[in-house]
């Protein structure tokens, strides 16, 4: 493990504590002191017990105590191994979390655009940023502006445009109409009919026909102007749409370029996760081995303690009542 508590896969020896079996046997002095200290307390109910213990120890009970000590030590040892296993597992999880964590990366396109992902160090929130090159930004702005203009024009009422188109058409038609009027005027004058006014036609029939034709042409021009204005409106909208689409083209190209990069990143992430898995498995195996060895040690110690106790309790149980156990019985009562 490193100083951060992360398991280093290269580390082979983990200090899970040294165990000295003799540390689990109390010295006779300590036991005597223990009996004295306990017996010295006058009026203490445990004084009988302690005196019994003393008698016990002095009667070969030290061996028994050593056994108990070994058992206790084995017991404690097992608890420590579990805790150590838990700690090591947590350390491993922490290590693997760090190993499996998303690693920001940036994709840079050939035209200078960049696509990057970042993790907020404070909140841990993942964010994605895209940045286009200045040329791309200029192009995008140009397209955006154009699209806006086209959409603005498309959104405007067509009346003014109709009028403008109509006026242009009329400007084209008017000279010919004027020529026709003059020709008719000359013809009517030659026929002495300039002054003809009829209830049926207003003027002469030819004048009516000409006026009707010109009015029909004017109406057709007006309708054409309306259609043209609407077509232009649709055209403006289509152009705006095209410009708008074109304005997103750099972004689309950047995203298109991001796809291979994203695949590479995913592959890297996958490899990372795979490595992390391998690391976890390897580390978990080490921990398992370590815990198994600890368990073995504890079992061995327990068996030793059990053996000592078995020898002790097996000899005395048949002759007399052990004052120690009596004392324990008293305490229990």
């Amino acid at each position: 493990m490193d100083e951060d508590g992360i398991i280093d896969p290269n580390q082979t020896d983990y200090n899970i504590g040294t165990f000295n079996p003799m540390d689990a046997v109390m010295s006779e002095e300590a036991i005597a002191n223990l009996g004295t200290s306990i017996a010295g307390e006058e009026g203490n109910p445990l004084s009988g017990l302690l005196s019994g213990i003393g008698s016990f120890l002095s009667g070969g009970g030290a061996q028994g105590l050593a056994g108990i000590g070994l058992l206790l030590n084995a017991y404690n040892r097992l608890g420590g191994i579990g805790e150590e296993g838990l700690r090591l597992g947590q350390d491993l999880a922490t290590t693997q979390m760090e190993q499996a964590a998303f690693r920001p990366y940036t994709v840079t396109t050939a035209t200078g655009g960049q696509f990057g992902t970042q993790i907020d160090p404070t909140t841990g929130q993942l964010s994605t940023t895209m940045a286009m090159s200045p040329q791309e930004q200029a192009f995008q702005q140009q397209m955006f502006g154009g699209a806006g203009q086209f959409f603005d024009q498309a959104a405007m009422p067509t009346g003014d445009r109709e009028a403008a188109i109509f006026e242009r058409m009329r400007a084209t038609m008017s000279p010919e109409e004027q020529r026709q009027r003059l020709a008719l005027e000359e013809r009517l004058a030659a026929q002495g009919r300039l002054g003809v006014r009829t209830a049926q036609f207003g003027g002469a029939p030819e004048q009516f026909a000409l006026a009707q034709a010109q009015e029909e042409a004017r109406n057709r021009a007006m309708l054409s102007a309306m259609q043209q204005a609407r077509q232009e409106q649709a055209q403006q909208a289509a152009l705006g749409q095209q410009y708008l689409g074109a304005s997103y083209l750099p972004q689309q190209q950047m995203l298109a370029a991001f796809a291979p990069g994203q695949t590479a990143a995913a592959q890297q992430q996958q490899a990372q996760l795979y490595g992390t898995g391998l690391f976890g498995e390897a580390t978990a195996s080490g921990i398992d081995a370590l815990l198994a060895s600890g368990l073995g040690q504890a079992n061995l110690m327990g068996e030793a303690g059990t053996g000592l106790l078995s020898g002790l309790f097996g000899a005395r149980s048949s002759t007399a009542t052990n004052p120690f156990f009596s004392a324990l019985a008293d305490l229990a009562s």
Partner: protein
Amino acid sequence: MAQQLSSINLVAPAFKGVNTEDSPIAQDPSFAEVADNAVIDKRGRIASRKGYDVITTTKTELGSDSIRAIREFRDSSGNTEIFSVGNNKILSGTTTLVDETPASYSITADNWKMVNFNDKIYFFQRGYEPLVYDNTGGSVVKLSTVTGAAGVTSAMYGNEVLSAYGRLWTADFSSDKSTIYWSDLLIGHDWSGGTSGSIDISKVWPDGYDEIVALAAHNGLLVIFGQHSIVVYQGAEAPATMSLSDTVAGVGCVDRDTVQHTGTDVLFLSHTGLRSFGRTIQQKSMPLQTLSKTITKDLIALIQNESSFYRSVYSPEENFYLLTFVGQSTTYCFDLRGALEDGSLRVTRWPSSVFTSYERLQSGELYIGSDQGISEYKDYQDNGESFRFKYYSPSLTFGDASKLKFIKKIKPTIVGASGEVASIKFAYDFDETYRSVAFNVPSSGAGAEFNVAQFNIDEYSGTTQQVVRKALNATGSGSTVVVGLEADIDGNALSLQEINILALVGKTV
């Protein structure tokens, strides 16, 4: 040795009518210097005109005024009515003149023109709302009151109205002198709907400006008479598309009421005399003919002095066109049977004419209006009175104006007449003091060779005309001689068949 008498025979004297234009000496003896109250009869002789017989017995509504216009109303059902105007009234009837003026319709002038159109008769006068009468309504009403009337405004209160090509046409308004309005087809009271319309010809006048005086329809043409020019439109059957056909500059029409249709021609009085349009369909042109070349200066003088109004009439039965200068009590009678070599019509004069209006009825009778009411052109008395027939030849030279002529005898041959007193007049060398030899025309039958029953059989049944030949002595001498005949026509026609002059030709002077 006595000299032989020369006989000069004036056969059918004055059968060419009056000629005051040519020199008297060089004139054809067939002309007349004077032919008053005369006509050219059916045999080409100069004869007395007919008189007028007043048929109006009650003319209270007319008062002392004269009949200014007469018109016979006739509809398709055969209903007829005689309308006349005078004394600022619309009158009807002939024997008794009845006031037909609509109520609350004030009239201060009698220059009406009346036309029949589609079973109605219309009355037009400048500045007055037109009036209309039909047999169904039975009364003269204002045009605007007719059901369906439209466009009857003061703008179309014209002085001239023409019924032609299925429409009414009107022109000559108070302020607008160049516009012609036409009504809807067959609807004389609709002037703003249907196919009604108007045409302003102010830009068409060949002289730049003129004023419409009269309208006429002729051979599919609409003839527009100005004061000094004439404009002709073709295709007037569809007025919206009619077009200018011809224009005549310098010749116009003096008055609306001088225009008469003769069937094959249109006669009108211009400022230089009576004229006509010759009908030339092939050439599609409009040659103008002057019909009064023999009295041009006389007519011009009359036109210039006319302060009243003109009246005219064409009578196919009488074969004449009468033109009356009412203010000067003079009527010229143009014979339409034939024209002279130069195209002129034979013309006679009716002086002291009291005629103020004419109307030729459908039946062929000729009605004459005067201050006595309505008269009929008939018989040979002016309302029971005789009138004076005059004939004077041009100056006769007997072929040599340089020699003296001694008129010994004058032998007139007169056809007709009965009991009248006639006078042979003659004068020498342009002297207007005529010597006169009167003679009595025998009463019809007394001395006539005709109409005498022979074995109880009428040799010439149906005629009472007699031929009177007289040989009258004459005196005096001169290089030129004017011979005349005057007679009071009092009930019988008189025709001058011939004048035979026996003269002694003397020395050269």
